[in-house]
């Protein structure tokens, strides 16, 4: 591991001022905020991340969960995943978020991992994690060996000819379906970013994964007021029953009245280069009867633009069945 300077700022402004000196907030950042460490320290051991300075934000007052004035929820950047999953209002009103978190990682990692850190979780693509290999995300322009190599777990939605890495988060899939907002404090002030706009598609700049600029600190994430009577399901399909990343997952938030779906929010995990909201599936469900035919059409719509890699054609059918079953469970629960 490369040497680094460990900095513990006394306030948010100090943290932002230090991080603002970084050349980038993306891959290759020379200043990194340190939260739970579960992704960053792992990648520092692999020399994938080599920051010269670490700004430990764990003792800044960013660890609160609070109700917002409109009846929604504000989740601080350093709220631990386990605390969020077990928070009573989350279990009651935003249960898809609780379900998603508790199906991710292990109990130990959930005790460490933070809300903001989960948003910035890096791909598990083996080429990204191995500095002996080329990787456009790690070293722009070096190539993507995954396209002709091991890609069984990689993306079928949102990929480009430069990068097919999957976003590994479960929590973010639920946040996409819940239409969360990311709150950022930067050197030039604060701003809000809709969850769907926070992560970027790889395109020809796969090293840029989010909208964050140097010095940008995620302070909290807000959820809109809960949708009364909504049915919420997170379904995760994977190679092992526990402690494994998704091959396909689906977050469903919907309301149903007299057998008809009146509102639907659908997001997919394990298949996209970012947490994958599917307005196509939502449109296919809204106003339709809760029937097998409707579920099938939603699944087809969600995967219509899917492009398989050499080893993961199975994911298209798997993701379709995942969406179908998640919606089926939600409408019958």
């Amino acid at each position: 591991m490369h040497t680094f300077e460990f900095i513990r700022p006394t306030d948010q402004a100090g943290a932002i001022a230090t991080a603002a000196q970084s050349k980038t907030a993306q891959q290759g950042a020379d200043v990194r905020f340190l939260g739970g460490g579960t992704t960053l320290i792992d990648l520092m051991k692999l020399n994938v991340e080599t920051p010269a300075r670490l700004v430990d934000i764990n003792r800044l007052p960013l660890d609160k969960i609070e109700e917002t004035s409109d009846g929604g929820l504000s989740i601080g950047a350093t709220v631990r995943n386990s605390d969020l999953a077990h928070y009573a209002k989350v279990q009651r009103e935003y249960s898809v978020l609780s379900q998603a978190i508790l199906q991710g990682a292990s109990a130990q990692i959930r005790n460490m991992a933070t809300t903001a850190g989960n948003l910035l979780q890096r791909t598990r693509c083996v080429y990204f994690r191995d500095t002996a290999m080329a990787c456009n995300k790690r070293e722009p322009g070096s190539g993507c060996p995954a396209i002709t190599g091991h890609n069984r777990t990689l993306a079928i939605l949102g990929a480009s000819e430069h990068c097919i890495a999957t976003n590994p988060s479960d929590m973010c899939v639920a946040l996409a379906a819940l239409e969360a907002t990311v709150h950022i404090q930067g050197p030039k002030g604060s701003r809000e970013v809709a969850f769907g706009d926070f992560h970027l598609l790889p395109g020809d700049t796969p090293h840029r994964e989010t909208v964050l600029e140097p010095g940008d600190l995620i302070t909290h994430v807000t959820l809109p007021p809960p949708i009364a009577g909504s049915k919420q399901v997170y379904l995760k399909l994977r190679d092992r029953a526990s402690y494994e990343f998704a091959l396909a997952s689906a977050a469903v938030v919907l309301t149903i009245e007299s057998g008809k779906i009146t509102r639907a929010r659908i997001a997919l995990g394990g298949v996209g280069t970012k947490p994958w909201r599917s307005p196509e599936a939502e449109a296919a469900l809204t106003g339709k009867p809760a029937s097998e035919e409707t579920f099938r059409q939603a699944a087809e719509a969600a995967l219509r633009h899917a492009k398989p890699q050499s080893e993961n054609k199975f994911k298209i059918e798997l993701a379709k069945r995942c969406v179908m079953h998640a919606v089926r469970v939600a409408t019958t629960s």
Partner: protein
Amino acid sequence: MPDNHQSEPPKPSRRSFLLTTGSTAAAGVVGAYLPAGANNPVERNDSSAAATSELNVEGTVPILLRINGKDHQLRVDPRTTLLDCLRETVDLTGTKKGCDHGQCGACTVHVNGRRVLSCLNFAVMHDGEEITTIEGLGTPEAMHPMQEAFYTHDAYQCGYCTSGQIMSAVALLKEPCGPDDAAVKELMSGNICRCGAYANIVAAIQQVRNRA
């Protein structure tokens, strides 16, 4: 540990023998870390400043860790994981290094009462915090009920993952967990046992939960 329960450990121990014979060869390798034993435990108000300053290796930072109820004033390279700090600096080798990448759970310890992976934390992050390791749970003479249950149920073969399993299991007692075996298995999935002692591990945990 169970072996010690029945017989005294051999003297010199296997560990001290390995440390002695390996120290010359290892000297060039462990430069990033202070040698084991260099940071002796000191009481918070103990004036050992002179001894500490002698070890003021360039780039190291002072931290205070309260480990198993005892204050340890240490100097560590910021790169030192909590795991390496416990094993190499404080010489508490009950916590094991398995994968060193957060995938196996062998390094599980408690920080402020919650189970975490000590391999994915830097020791400096825990300045002033409370750490509990397997050595702080019980002794061969007075085992923690979970240690006793692992012993009774033969919940191990090689024993390498055992301290991490027990630290996880003890933390689980205070976490939301359903009553059935499936709930225990789910919450213990972060602790891998290559020997496959899972059935006995679950039985040991359930025995402690049902008695509580």
